[in-house]
């Protein structure tokens, strides 16, 4: 029987590979949408590759998270790194979902508007960056070192909000989501 640890390695590699591809494609799409470096003709390819890879990475992430929890020694989240991984991973999923839902709503025209193309490429790159930092934390937790250690990120500091503040942020987000669903006059 394959252990949770082995499955975690497989699912993590799937997720990270997909996100790394998405990151490169979002960078290319951002450059191409601005017409820089004569890459404008690659916009359609980069756009499709970026969003497809991001969606694939998003699908692989729950498997990586579930197997990671299964293979982790001890009960629950009992280490600052694990809490930070969970918070950062959630932020990454949220940002990636926002990027994908925006692409679904606006279609390829998301790249037509000047601010739209900036936000879309930056949003995609941001989601990828957050996932890479999350993965780096996993390396620090299991092996005691990772490639991003050069940045000296404060992994041991847990920015935990009080429950009421989390609920307020959640409520605000839900209210905004509901309001956004109402069509705005053109």
């Amino acid at each position, binding site marked *: 029987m394959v252990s*949770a640890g082995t499955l975690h390695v497989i699912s993590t590699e799937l997720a990270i590979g997909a996100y790394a591809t998405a990151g490169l494609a979002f960078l290319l799409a951002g450059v191409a949408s601005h017409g820089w470096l004569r890459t404008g003709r690659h916009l359609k390819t980069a756009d499709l590759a970026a969003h497809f890879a991001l969606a694939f990475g998003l699908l692989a992430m729950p498997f990586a998270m579930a197997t990671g929890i299964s*293979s982790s020694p001890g009960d629950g989240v009992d280490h600052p790194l694990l809490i930070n991984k969970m918070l950062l991973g*959630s932020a990454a999923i949220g940002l990636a979902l*926002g990027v994908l839902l925006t692409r679904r*709503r606006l279609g390829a025209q998301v790249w037509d508007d000047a601010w739209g193309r900036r936000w879309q490429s930056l949003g995609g790159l941001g989601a990828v960056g957050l996932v890479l930092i999350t993965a780096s934390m996993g390396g620090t937790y299991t092996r005691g070192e990772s490639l991003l250690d050069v940045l000296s990120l404060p992994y041991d500091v847990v920015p935990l909000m009080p429950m009421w503040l989390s*609920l307020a*942020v959640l409520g605000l987000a839900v209210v*905004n989501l509901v309001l956004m669903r109402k069509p705005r006059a053109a």
Partner: protein
Amino acid sequence: MKRILVVIMVSALLMAPSFGAANPNGVGDGTFDAQCGGACHGDADMNRTSASTVTLEMASVVYEGLLTSVSVTVTDVQTTSSGMLGVFLLSDVSGSGDTPQDDGWTIVSNSEGGSQNYVEVVVPSGVMQHTVEWTLRAPAVGTYDLHASVHHGAEDGNGAPFFGVSAAPISVEVQPVPVDLPRLSDGFQPPVLRTLGEATTVRLTTTSVDDVQVEWRVAGGTVQSATATPDGDGAWTFDIPASLEPVVVEWRVHLEGDGPTQTTPWLALQSEASSFTVDETTAYVQSFAMLMAFMVAFMALQRRVPPPIDQPKILPFPDEVMG
């Protein structure tokens, strides 16, 4: 809807194997019965026989209510690539109600810094023998048996659980305490855990004791002496220096009085970094809040009215030509 159902089913099937494995990363120390219902391997029928040999060593005669030690040695250690090995101290191997506590023993400490009958140790690759020691308080007068067993996985990582048990139990006779025997009082409970960087003051409560000699050592290291100070009414205090690393410090006392001098077993004191605790519900709620906040914030940034689908956005030629 049908597609969503298929995706959910496939996801559940893909995730099922990870939860079905026999806890290859262990379950942590605890108080468990022989077949560890709820511990490492749920179903005894799945177990394979371990090739390891398990032996116990203990004094054959001990005194009621006094401390004694038992060591369990596992030879020909076999385990997973992570080296995880689970070791049990048991009163029988029936699989139910067979912890030492069920026979009246009290586990005071074990060499891994806990006070449970099941401990998980990590045996480095290539090491073929490992010993775990327990310090027990003897039960009522009588004759008792103690067993030991091991649970582990296999190097090839196939997930099969292995179970091994001591070939023969060790038999112990518990006798009444002689009247003038220098001893620790029945209610004395030694500390088993302490925080890194903090010295530990131990307060001994004794009976029929005129003088106390204290010895301590870092597990396996040189034996040092500590000075015990009388604290009135048969009590004595002494200090164990702070440790800067998470190590096990062992200590014992020689008790002198009118009766024959007694020496307690080595008692383990584990130093640990102050544990990290957090309200998990708060963390989970914040995670979900961050997920929603990041998603909605980004969608709000990109909030524009999409053009009607039936209106072509880009025409191949200027309007004048098309017109």
